[in-house]
């Protein structure tokens, strides 16, 4: 279960405090599919990074399976992220000089998997997203949709129980968007918890429920 309790994130810019997140509380049970919607600058991406252990809150606590995330050491957070969390980004964040299969291998390498096993698992994941004929292509040689599918395969590499997706359809055409959402729904049906940030109501409505965040505070 994911739990955010009275969380705030305050940045200091030129002696002025800017509240990116203001006293947000949220509970996401295991197996849920939640979309977080809100205008640009409302702090939804910050909240997602916070759930992923990449942005510590100024106030409040974040729990993953009853474990207070930011009470762990940075290395313990990294290990937990590697084991339980998969990220999907709007801009995919693929490593440009690696091939599709090598991009998928990166999290497997980080988990210390043997090279031969890495290749086998990465091949399986790329097959699953329908890119088995593009394994040795670099991201620049692939379409935007194909790049997002590599990012999805990479996200699945360590078999995460929680998937955090930040505008996963933001750069895609409607047809590809629908493919990605369908893929996320399938993953949710496998029992994975999915938190998706979006500003597209049509995409948001395909989640089990939506949470609206407006300029730092949760509306509901």
């Amino acid at each position: 279960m994911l739990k955010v309790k009275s969380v705030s994130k305050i940045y200091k810019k030129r002696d002025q405090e800017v509240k990116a997140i203001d006293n947000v509380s949220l509970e996401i049970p295991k197996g849920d599919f939640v979309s977080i919607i809100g205008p640009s600058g409302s702090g939804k991406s910050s909240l997602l990074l916070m759930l992923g252990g990449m942005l510590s809150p100024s106030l409040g606590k974040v729990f993953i399976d009853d474990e207070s995330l930011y009470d762990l050491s940075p290395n313990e957070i990294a290990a937990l992220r590697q084991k339980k969390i998969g990220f999907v980004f709007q801009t995919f964040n693929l490593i440009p000089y690696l091939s599709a299969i090598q991009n998928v291998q990166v999290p497997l390498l980080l988990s210390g998997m043997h090279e031969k096993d890495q290749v086998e698992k990465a091949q399986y994941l790329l097959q699953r997203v329908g890119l088995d004929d593009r394994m040795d292509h670099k991201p620049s040689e692939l379409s935007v949709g194909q790049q997002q599918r590599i990012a999805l395969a990479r996200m699945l590499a360590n078999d995460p129980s929680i998937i955090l997706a930040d505008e996963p359809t933001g750069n895609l055409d409607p047809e590809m968007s629908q493919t990605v959402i369908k893929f996320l729904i399938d993953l949710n049906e496998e029992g994975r918890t999915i938190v998706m940030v979006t500003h597209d109501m049509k995409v948001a409505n395909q989640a089990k429920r939506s949470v609206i965040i407006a300029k730092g505070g949760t509306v509901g």
Partner: protein
Amino acid sequence: MNWNTLVFRELLQRKNKLITSGLAIVLGIAVIVTINTVTTYSEKAISKELDALGANILILPHGASLVDYYSADLQAGEIPEEYVTLLTTSNLEGLDNLSPKLSVPVNVGDKQVTLTGILPKNEFQSKASWQGAGIFSRPKSCGNVDDIFGLTQKAPKETLVRKRVIETLEPNEVLVGSDVASKLQLKEGEEIAMLDKPFKISAILPQTGTVDDSRVFAHLHTVQDLTGKDAVVNAIEVVGCCEQISKGLVAKINYLIPDAQVITISQVVDTQVKTNALMRNLSTLFLVIIIAIGGASIANDMYNNVYERRKEIGTLVALGANSSVVLKVFLKKALLLGILGGVGGYIIGTIIAVVLGPLVAGVPVLPIPYLFFVAVGLSVCITLIASYFPARYATRLDPCTVLQEV
């Protein structure tokens, strides 16, 4: 895939960046190697020239003065020749060349000249009771510099003038000072008679501007026999290492030979010490400046590389990499670039030094093998240090900023 694949792929993906980064490191190291090689050979050349200033320590009988020495009027006092053996077999450091001398006035025809008995180097070595531990087998030091290829290939006879020693001298051979040769119109290969013995002139010495110009040199033992003297000498000239002199070599000789007086020719020593110190300081200054400039250039390049890859760092962190993994990726790259830069810098720097050294510094320059290890070590250290801090900084950046997602 392993971490090396990640590093190699990144390097090969950005070939232009690899070339410019590599070039920055190679040029930085090349400059360091060039300057160091040229200054090392310049120092050697200067030390070699200082060597030509002659002896810097004199061992004289008690009561004899420098005036006696320079006027070659040394018959009032004598010291045993065995002092030479004592010195050659001692463990004193910094004794580079020894030249025992016995000077007597003799007539050549109706002209009086000074006949000086000297001991050739091959006889020192046979005298040393423990060969291999004798002074001539010791490592070269500041007073006894390695020959420099192309610079010091002089005729053997000149070594008497330069190093105060001569390799061999037969009992019937003499070396004639330039003034004597000119006054008596003597030539190489001719014969002259002194003390009722005929001698063959094996060489006319070049002009030195010292009392040596008005001397005739013969084998020490021949002079001793002809003058009816025992195994004695008037003086022992010593070319000592100036560093060791300043560390108390004179006192140590005095302790070893208490019945003689040991005099330092302070002008010679001062010049040697000051010039050597000047050259050493200049070399160090050059090295520090070049390392600072080369290091700053390399550091700037590595910093830019880390800065450009912030998003990649953010991605790795999002995928579960901790800071040590990120550091490892960057430091491996730095290590690789450091090794390549060091090897390339050494090769290019050495070629530049060997080609341009003689033109710029006027000394022949040869490759210095140990600089290879210095170049690689320095290059690796600079690239690692220059990468470590920006990479560590990058691992601590706000992920929101790094991933540009907000």
